[in-house]
């Protein structure tokens, strides 16, 4: 990572600095379960033989999570970190993507109502778009930062004023979360599998109630009928805000994702009228 101007870099990271501000970080608990990916990988290979849209493990995880979320709607709601919840019936999954020096975000909308091919197609196009525009975005933000010196403090001030206003107006708070959803979706999946990361921990931030971290696929030795066998496994790490949910509730959700991945023909179906 080469940063030519630290202040430009900070300006680019403003949204992340704000996201992880003390006020937004909740009491985080992480719970991990393991998924046998044998069936999912076979299913992916079969799909990739019959279609020219390349389906990745990440696409399958997005779909499996979207379908599982139909049974756990609470986890798509927004929580303000105090005593208010803001419901939604949308399952829009946000996936951070690696765009070099920049963090790209893809939002796949209505995941439960889409087929795995539609999701695969959207992620590929989105990823290409992020990669193509990333450098341009970095340069544009650097220019703005240099031209308008007071922009960063002005953004911080406006955001803080909004924060104070939301203490007194539920409607204002609802409007802010609505805009947040439009930009950031309703659920986050962070998949570091491609980078070879086999475990990771991060704090939960409001308005999320649960987020999903996904590790790389690893080979695990098992003994079956006296024979040693290798199976591919992936770790699903559920990150939860303990004020609003518990480990048991979250693990039930993780187990639904696991079931969808271990029985992919049924679990990765497009859901209608849920």
């Amino acid at each position, binding site marked *: 990572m080469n940063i030519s101007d630290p202040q430009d870099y900070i300006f680019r990271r403003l949204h992340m600095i704000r996201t992880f501000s003390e006020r937004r970080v909740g*009491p985080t608990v992480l719970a991990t*379960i*393991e998924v046998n990916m044998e069936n999912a990988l076979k299913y992916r290979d079969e799909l990739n033989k019959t279609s020219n849209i390349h389906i990745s493990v990440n696409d399958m995880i997005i779909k499996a999570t979207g379908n599982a979320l139909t049974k756990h709607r609470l986890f798509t*709601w927004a929580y303000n970190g105090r005593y208010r919840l803001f419901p939604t019936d949308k399952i829009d999954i946000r996936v951070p993507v690696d765009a070099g020096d920049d963090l790209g975000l893809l939002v796949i909308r209505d995941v439960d109502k889409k087929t795995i091919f539609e999701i695969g197609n959207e992620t590929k196009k989105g990823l290409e778009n992020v990669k193509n525009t990333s450098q341009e975005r970095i340069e544009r933000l650097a220019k703005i930062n240099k031209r308008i010196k007071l922009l960063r403090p002005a953004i911080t001030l406006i955001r803080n004023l909004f924060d104070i206003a939301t203490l007194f107006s539920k409607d204002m708070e609802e409007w802010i979360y609505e805009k947040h959803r439009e930009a950031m979706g309703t659920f986050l999946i962070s998949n570091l599998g491609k980078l070879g990361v086999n475990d990771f921990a991060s704090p939960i931030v409001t308005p999320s109630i649960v987020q999903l971290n996904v590790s790389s696929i690893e080979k695990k*030795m*098992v*003994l079956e009928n006296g024979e040693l066998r290798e199976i591919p496994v992936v*770790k699903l790490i559920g990150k939860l805000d303990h004020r609003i949910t*518990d480990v048991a509730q979250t693990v039930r959700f993780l187990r639904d994702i696991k079931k969808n991945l271990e029985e992919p023909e049924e679990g990765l179906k497009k859901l209608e009228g849920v």
Partner: protein
Amino acid sequence: MNKTPEEIISMRRLVIDRFHRLNCAPTVTINMDAFIEPALQLKDRLNQDERAKKSRITLNHIILKATAMALREDIFFNYDYDGKYRIYPNDRIDIRTPVDLGDFPVHIVIPETDKKSIFEISYVFNERLEEVKKNIDTKMKKYVDFQLKRKGLSSLVNLWTEFARRARPLFPAWEKRWFEIQHRYIGTFMVTNMGTLGVIDCHGQLVKPSIAALLVLSTRDVVSIVDNKPLSRKYLGLALEFDHRVVDAAEAGRFLQKIKRNIEEPEKYCL
């Protein structure tokens, strides 16, 4: 969960307050694996006893006993810490264990766990669980109704909670009394067993006055080569979370080793 946002918030009001940022501790988690087959054999043997007919022994009961015995040796982990500069000693070991009853976790406290036999622990645990199952719906309904229907009064209670949370640390006698009252409902040390849920790893958030808590993970089969033949052995994951302000990883590791030892040699340390 078919509940309105307001009902969910009312149900979880106590938990939201408990996990208030003023109560949260800088939590570190360390992990260890314990060879679990001796404990499973002990469980099977105890369940053949006459006394187990009244209430069956589970692995969880043996773990509770093993933890209580380790706490006897390292009683510091049973003390209360105010999150600043005071520690309140606590010699009575009352282990609490949360149980999953659907929408809301319920905590079961086993008073003086170290002084009870595994049969007694099992009996008390099951008796309290039945009692809780019977009353949970009515109690929760009452609590939610109070929050939603008697808004004025509940706002006063919430205001008092907010004030007390900030004022208590200034008055040690009040804080000590508050911790003692809390012991009735949440005991002095928490053991959470997530093994049945298939959780292989967990990092928690510790809240005051706890100094440490034990998270029990699922059992897993580890394949090793013995005499040129593959052999599968069962191990239990243990995770200890602790407040880094008052405990270091080495001390916590030594305490966790004692729990592991008690689980691996239950006949010697748990009977």
